[in-house]
């Protein structure tokens, strides 16, 4: 679905006369291979290049070096950008700044309208997309009256109505409260399972990463770790070296292990923790 090899991107800063002042290499030799139907999370602290990757995948930025294929379209070719944007939809961080219309259903229709989908089909797609994110009851509301989580679900519906194969979410929960965060994360998990849509979730919340198929850790424009959540979180020291945290349960198990308690590495959920702990220490 998404394939990158030796992908690099440089932000060039210029002074007022247009002379080059400095070059920031936001992406540096990134190799990616994301398969259709995968749920992949990209982790990284601020400035690690994770948002740049999202913009590359959506062909908003053009690679400085290397190649990137999305759904077999080369992102560096101008004539491909509309096909790429249709097959890899993008959800941004700020829910207010990505809704265009002042009525929910008209906003969801914005994508298909741009694609030139016939009217009857748009109506079907809008109804279907709102149904999938559980927002059918709000179809005639104004986005200004919705909560952050609901607005983000509308944004997702707007992408779904374009029938994409893949959705890239660039820190979709960063501006939401815990409830909104849960809403959004469970919505995308459902879309991944039921519709088979490839999800690329860019985040810095460790707890959101736990249910993913694959985690990619980025630092300084490079991919530094790759693997299943369990593999990644079994290497706590390495994670901390890249200025990231462990999920709370994993952290607790890790600290206990350091104090001499017999706990396995890479525990991801509270249930697992309880299971591991009781199986070793029950009755003692």
């Amino acid at each position, binding site marked *: 679905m998404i394939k990158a090899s030796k992908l690099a991107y440089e932000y060039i800063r210029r002074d007022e006369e247009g002379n080059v002042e400095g070059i920031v290499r936001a992406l540096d030799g990134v190799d990616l291979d994301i398969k259709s139907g995968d749920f992949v999370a990209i982790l990284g602290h601020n400035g690690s290049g994770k948002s740049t990757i999202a913009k590359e995948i959506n062909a908003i930025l053009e690679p400085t070096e290397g190649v990137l294929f999305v759904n077999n379209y080369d992102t560096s070719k101008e004539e491909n950008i509309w096909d790429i944007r249709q097959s890899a939809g993008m959800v941004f961080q700020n829910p*207010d700044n990505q809704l265009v219309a002042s009525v929910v259903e008209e906003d969801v229709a914005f994508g298909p309208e741009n694609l030139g989908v016939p009217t009857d089909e*748009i109506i079907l797609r809008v109804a279907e997309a709102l149904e999938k994110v559980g927002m059918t009851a709000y179809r005639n509301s104004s*986005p200004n009256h919705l909560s952050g989580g609901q607005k983000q679900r509308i944004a997702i519906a707007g992408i779904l109505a374009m029938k994409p194969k893949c959705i890239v979410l660039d820190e979709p929960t960063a501006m939401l409260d815990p409830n909104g965060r849960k809403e959004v994360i469970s919505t995308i998990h459902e879309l991944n399972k039921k519709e088979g849509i490839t999800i690329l979730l860019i985040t810095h919340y460790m707890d959101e990463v736990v249910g993913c198929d694959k985690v990619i850790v980025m630092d300084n424009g490079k991919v530094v770790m790759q693997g299943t959540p369990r593999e990644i979180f079994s290497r706590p020291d390495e994670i901390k070296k890249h200025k990231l945290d462990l999920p709370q349960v994993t952290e607790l198990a890790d600290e206990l292990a350091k104090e001499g308690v017999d706990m396995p590495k890479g525990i991801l959920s509270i249930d697992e923790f309880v299971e591991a702990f009781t199986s070793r220490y029950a009755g003692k």
Partner: protein
Amino acid sequence: MLRDITLGQYYPTDSVIHRLDPRVKLTATLLFIVSMFLFHSFLGYAVAGICLAVVIVISHVPFRFMMKGLKTIWFLLIFTMIFNIFLTDGTILFQWKFIKISQEGLLTAAFMGLRLFFLIIGSSLMTLTTTPNQLTTGMETGLRWMKVIHVPVHEIAMMMSIALRFIPILMEETDKIMKAQQARGADFEEGKLMDRVRALVPVFVPLFVSAFRRANELAMAMEARCYRGDNGRTSMKPLKYAARDGIAYVIMVLFLVLIVFTDKIAALIF
């Protein structure tokens, strides 16, 4: 709350006027404005007034609500009337030193006042019965022919609808910034006019910065959703004329004929 502010003062009722196609209402308003300059007799004003009153009654919008829209225009209205009273020459009814009031002056003043009043009520009837969204689509579809003379109709309509979406958001933001500045000791309510204007600078600078940032993000989000102007764009709710819209057009033509006709008759009688 600030977020409940609606632009344009739409008054929702379920009347026939509300359900009319926005293009019909735009044309009707335009025709009504033009017709105001077609007659010069009392009879003409009476006919126009009666027709307007009938439409208002059908629209179910309370007349008191309409007068609210006049509030800002009162000054202009009275100003125009006073000028007309004192500056028109003719048969003098009253004279004191250089101030003269003539019969013609009073008459033109009354006509002018009525004409302005009709214009304002007529056009606010449109904004009261049409949502801003409908108006935008109406303008986009109805004025599409202007593209021939290179007027960017779609772009203007898109700008209008985005402005409508962001006005409440920016209002809320202004409120937030003002509170933040007040918390740090800014004073917006006291001092001379110049001081108060100056106090607003620290509000507008961050507001502008944030508006530009929003614009940038929105543009990116729109591009990511395949927006490319109106190239091959379709619509979820395309405007379609119904039977009532045809009837409305017929009534409009009849109204024009009636106005011109009464003016001719009035000219014959008086």
